[in-house]
């Protein structure tokens, strides 16, 4: 079973790629997997019948007692057959249903396919937490599948509704799942069922689980999501909403029923809600004009029916329930597939616009008739067999004096009458020739192959009905797991029993209802809707929206000072109070370790005050930078060269990022007009400083055990093979942390980029063209500078690749020359730092920062074109590659049988070269290096290059305003602005030719 799931997982990941080549035929290919699973399951039948179950367990998270435990007994076997069988049929149907040009085909195929796998996992999982995981995955996948038409609002709304309702139920269920597994002391479903615990805790747990089950199976009051979900493509409806997902709730109830059907509340809830759902669904179904909605409400009704029978809790009911479950899956998916065909062929699902389809499509009509007959309970179909047994089971219970027997019998009988009526109405609506419809429906003949799927299902429905006695042997083990004696059996003919008469009466009354359909419709018009849960849902979501909007407006007014103030005030109040009342002050403390500290601290304090004082933004940033470099000095004096180096690089990069952002803001920060504001901020600032200082003091003084860092050097040297403790700690001892951190870096970089770039991370247009010709001459020869006329005697060379691309007024030749000479050495040093890091100050982080700084200077000297020349690949790829390397080296160790992130070292004496030692941690460090470079590049591209570009565009727009616009009449005193030359995109090829002509 685990193997099958693994195959499902791999193939579903591969499906989108396959879909690129195979287009809609990808469905045929992937359908082989559920088909294989179906055959495999079928072959297990004999063993399950004789041995009762097959199991499979793989240890997963022993700490949580969570295992990949699978168990296939009769019930799971039946469901697995339904899921894989119908799944195969639906996937094959999709090949015909979708055209080659369907947008998002690969994604859809992958999700639908994955859904089949998930359902298989759900029904075979023995661990209740594992089952719950599959349960939630189906919710998510159904969200994605229902929302397939992403452009349609109703489609997205329906998807969200289904997701909210089912995950709400799922979360409630999770509580129940945890409660019951704690009660039983095991997470094994079979153990939980076998234990059959009682008591208030168990009742609560089971009721909570029931909430999950009925939300999934669209039982009142959660039924409304199912009709809305009909916005999905029809194959989704056929699979998820007939055979698979909605059956998950039924399955869970059927699974728990042997142990818990006698718990107080169980029958009341399930039979009560089930009967109610059956009546509501059927009643609504009778009113629909959209064929798909007729089926949707019909499904709601039938799910109620199923809930009653599987929740009933007697062996006879269990057998009948299993039969109905099978029958319903088959006929309902057939009918959905038929509706899909009609929809495609006629272009509408509204039966008022359909006429004469029966004549044009006799085969389809026959298939539909078979499915309808099964739904209505007409012999010799499986639906009839199931219904017979159901009424038999209810009668048996009623005669034994169980009041629920009567309720269930009468309720479902009335529901069945309505079912017969809407079944007949569906068939009549779809295929009859009506004079009322003004024109005969326009008809695009569907491919014949599309009929195969529903045809097969219809035939199965007939065969299973006729040979229903044979089913007993295979299904009996399930009802036998209940207390009590199994009396009934599945058969077409039970003799003249009360159940038969009930069936006949139902068919007759249903036919009468259909006969008098006009009067029924009028009656329905007259009656007000009894329950309208969807309105409740909408008012709840609207209220949540409103509250969240209000909270947002209250909490986030949009001013950064307010956010900061909130955070800091909370910090001061909470931690300050704790520090004050905690009475944990250290008894002794040193004022300083060495006198330099005092000097550095003074400088830092002065810089901080200055930063708060000044109104020049740039000055403030530089002063804050001074505090950062003060930290560098402190680290360095403290004997931590590695930290000092990294801190220095970080500080530099931070200042650069600040400057890049601030250049778009006015030079002076806003003046606070009110004295109160200044005072308030001063109080907050001083308070924060004092509290932070106090906390540092307390934290340093409250150490009672030896710090673990004492052992780090030894561990780093003997286990991590490195002399640089900091680096070994980063890439080995606490590599998990580093992994989290670089993931955060990637997220941050992506966030920054997405703030600035509207679409895509890098402006792709023309990047190829801007890249120098790939020949060594074009790239590395001495280039003449486009700014200086080549003819004049003072001709100069160009120092950077794109140096001439920025306006001459903004160029700094000094910077260009220095960058030209220092760029390569800086990169070499950064590579050195990367590799030396294991034993000396350095490492991937410092190295990456240095390389990033080199890029910063390249950008500062040559602008965004230069940056693009320097690193032709976009930052996203760098970040991704870095993450892949880091994660790859982390996971790599798994393949060698050791724990994740454990490091391996390879050392050898190579002749000539000497002793070489390479560890997997080096690969990890290279990953860190790439991520850091990618982050810096992303900052430069977005905050630097993209902001430049937007500025240029704004400038050009400004200059292009006509001469009468008022702006232009003001004499421009800004020297820079007048000198500014609009940048004419000077293509590299033009530059080259100029040089060659000379």
């Amino acid at each position, binding site marked *: 079973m685990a193997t099958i799931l693994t195959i499902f997982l791999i193939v579903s990941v591969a499906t989108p790629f396959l879909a690129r080549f195979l287009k809609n035929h990808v469905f045929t290919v992937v359908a082989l997997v559920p088909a294989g699973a179906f055959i495999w399951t079928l072959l297990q039948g004999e063993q399950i019948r004789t041995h009762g179950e097959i199991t499979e367990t793989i240890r997963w998270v022993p700490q949580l007692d969570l295992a990949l435990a699978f168990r296939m007994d009769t019930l799971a076997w039946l469901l697995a057959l339904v899921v894989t069988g119908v799944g195969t049929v639906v996937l094959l149907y999709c090949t015909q249903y979708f055209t080659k040009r369907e947008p998002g085909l690969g994604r859809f195929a992958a999700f639908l396919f994955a859904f089949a796998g998930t359902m298989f996992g759900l029904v075979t999982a023995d661990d209740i937490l594992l089952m719950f995981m599959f349960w939630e995955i189906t919710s998510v996948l159904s969200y994605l599948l229902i929302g397939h038409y992403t452009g349609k609002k109703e489609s997205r709304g329906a998807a969200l509704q289904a997701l909210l309702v089912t995950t709400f139920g799922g979360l409630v269920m999770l509580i129940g799942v945890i409660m019951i597994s704690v009660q039983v002391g095991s997470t094994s479903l079979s153990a939980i069922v076998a234990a059959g615990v009682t008591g208030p805790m168990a009742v609560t747990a089971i009721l909570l689980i029931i909430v999950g089950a009925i939300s999934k199976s669209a039982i009142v009051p959660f039924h409304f999501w199912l009709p809305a979900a009909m916005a999905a493509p029809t194959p989704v409806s056929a699979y998820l909403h007939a055979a698979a997902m909605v059956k998950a709730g039924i399955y869970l109830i059927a699974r728990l029923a042997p142990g818990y059907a006698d718990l107080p509340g169980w029958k009341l809830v399930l039979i009560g809600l089930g009967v109610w759902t059956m009546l509501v669904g059927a009643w609504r179904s009778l009113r629909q004009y959209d064929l798909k909605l007729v089926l949707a409400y019909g499904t709601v009704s039938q799910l109620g029916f199923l809930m009653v029978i599987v929740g009933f809790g007697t062996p006879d009911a269990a057998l009948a329930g299993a039969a109905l479950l099978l029958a319903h899956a088959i006929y309902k998916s057939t009918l959905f597939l038929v509706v899909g065909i009609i929809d495609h062929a006629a272009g509408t699902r509204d039966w008022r616009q359909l006429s004469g389809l029966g004549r044009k499509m006799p085969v389809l009509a026959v298939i539909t008739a078979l499915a309808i007959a099964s739904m209505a309970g007409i012999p010799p179909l499986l639906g009839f067999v199931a219904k017979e047994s159901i009424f038999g089971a209810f009668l048996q219970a009623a005669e034994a004096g169980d009041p629920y027997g009567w309720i269930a019998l009468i309720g479902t009988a009335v529901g069945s009458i309505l079912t017969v009526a809407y079944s007949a109405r569906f068939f009549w609506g779809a295929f009859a020739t009506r004079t009322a419809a003004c024109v005969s429906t326009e008809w695009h003949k569907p491919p014949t192959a599309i009929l195969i799927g529903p045809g097969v299902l219809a035939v199965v429905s007939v065969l299973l009905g006729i040979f229903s006695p044979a089913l007993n042997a295979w299904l009996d083990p399930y009802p036998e797991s209940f207390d009590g004696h199994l009396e009934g059996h599945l058969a077409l003919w039970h003799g003249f029993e009360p159940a038969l008469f009930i069936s006949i009466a139902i068919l007759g009354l249903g036919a009468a209802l259909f006969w008098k359909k006009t009067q029924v419709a009028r009656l329905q018009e007259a009656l007000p809707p009894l329950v309208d849960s969807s309105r409740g849902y909408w008012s709840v979501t609207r209220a949540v929206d409103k509250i969240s909007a209000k909270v947002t407006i209250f909490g986030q007014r949009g001013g950064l000072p307010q956010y900061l103030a909130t955070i800091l005030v909370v910090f001061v109040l909470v931690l300050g109070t704790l520090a004050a009342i905690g009475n944990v002050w250290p008894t002794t403390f040193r004022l300083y370790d060495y006198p330099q500290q005092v000097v550095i601290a003074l400088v830092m304090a002065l810089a901080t005050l200055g930063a708060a004082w000044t109104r020049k933004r740039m000055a403030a940033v530089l002063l804050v930078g001074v505090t950062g470099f003060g930290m560098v000095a402190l680290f360095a004096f403290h004997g931590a060269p590695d930290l000092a180096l990294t801190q220095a690089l970080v500080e530099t990069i931070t200042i650069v990022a600040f400057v890049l952002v601030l250049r778009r803001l006015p030079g002076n920060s806003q003046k606070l007009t009110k004295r109160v504001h200044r005072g308030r901020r001063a109080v907050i600032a001083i308070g924060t400083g004092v509290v932070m200082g106090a906390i540092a003091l307390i934290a340093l003084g409250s150490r009672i055990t030896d710090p673990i860092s004492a052992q780090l050097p030894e561990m780093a040297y003997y286990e991590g093979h490195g002399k640089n403790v900091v680096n070994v700690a980063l890439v080995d001892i606490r590599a998990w942390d580093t992994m989290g951190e670089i993931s955060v870096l990637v997220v941050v970089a992506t966030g920054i980029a997405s703030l600035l770039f509207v679409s895509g991370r890098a402006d792709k247009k023309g990047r190829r063209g801007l890249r120098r010709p790939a020949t060594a001459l074009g*790239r590395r*020869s*001495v280039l003449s500078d486009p700014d200086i006329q080549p003819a004049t005697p003072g001709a100069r060379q160009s120092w950077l690749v794109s140096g001439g691309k920025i306006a001459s007024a903004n160029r700094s030749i000094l910077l260009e020359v220095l960058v030209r000479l220092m760029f390569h050495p800086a990169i070499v040093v950064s590579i050195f730092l990367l590799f030396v890091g294991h034993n000396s100050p350095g490492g991937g982080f410092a190295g990456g920062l240095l390389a990033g700084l080199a890029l910063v200077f390249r950008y500062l000297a040559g602008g965004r074109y230069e940056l693009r020349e320097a690193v032709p690949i976009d930052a996203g790829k760098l970040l991704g590659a870095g993450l892949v390397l880091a994660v790859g080296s982390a996971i790599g160790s798994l393949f060698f049988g050791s724990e994740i992130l454990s490091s391996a070292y390879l050392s050898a004496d190579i002749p000539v070269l000497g002793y070489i030692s390479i560890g997997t941690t080096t690969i990890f460090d290279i990953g860190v290096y790439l991520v850091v470079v990618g982050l810096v590049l992303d900052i430069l591209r977005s905050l630097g290059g993209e902001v430049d570009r937007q500025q240029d565009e704004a400038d050009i727009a400004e200059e292009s305003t006509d001469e009468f616009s008022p702006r232009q009449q003001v004499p421009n005193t800004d020297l820079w602005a007048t000198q500014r030359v609009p940048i004419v995109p000077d293509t590299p090829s033009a530059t080259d030719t100029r040089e060659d002509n000379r």
Partner: protein
Amino acid sequence: MPQQTRDKHRLAGLSQGLLALGLLLLWCLLWGSFTPLTIITGILVSTGVSFTFYLPGVELSGRVNPWRVIVFFVVLAWDILRASIQIAWLAFAPNFKPGNAIVGIPLNTRSDLIMSWTSTAISIVPGSIVVDLDRSGSILYVHVIDVHSEEDIQRFIQEVLDTERRLVLAIGSKAEVVRVNEQHALARGRKNR
């Protein structure tokens, strides 16, 4: 291909080679050893870096005078030392009168390289810093402190020109050397008169 262009390409190749050699030297110095391992990895790294992050070739003058290089660095070191003491004295001087100026100094050189290195040399000497430069006219705009008269300014300009001259004599092209020496003789003549 015209002779001039071919020369240019040869020169470019040479300069790229020289720079790569410099990178190799840097790599070995960083590792602190000249073993086969560092040299081979150094060759890999330096060629890899200069190919991946390609930059245009550098027009070198084709002339180095080692003795003049030493002279340049010794004088530079002396200048730094002298200026540091001066600035320190200024900071504590009891009767300090601020007297700052921005002086535009037309250099004699026509080479970006000499110009940049001259301005770098001026900037790392405390008390003077290059704030802007005009590339086409080879004019440096230098901010200098503690100047109080036209004479001070003239002396400072001469200092800068001397720095330039030392640099040109060390690594400048022949044409540059000739030009700088001419200007120097001219200036000296003017002074003596």
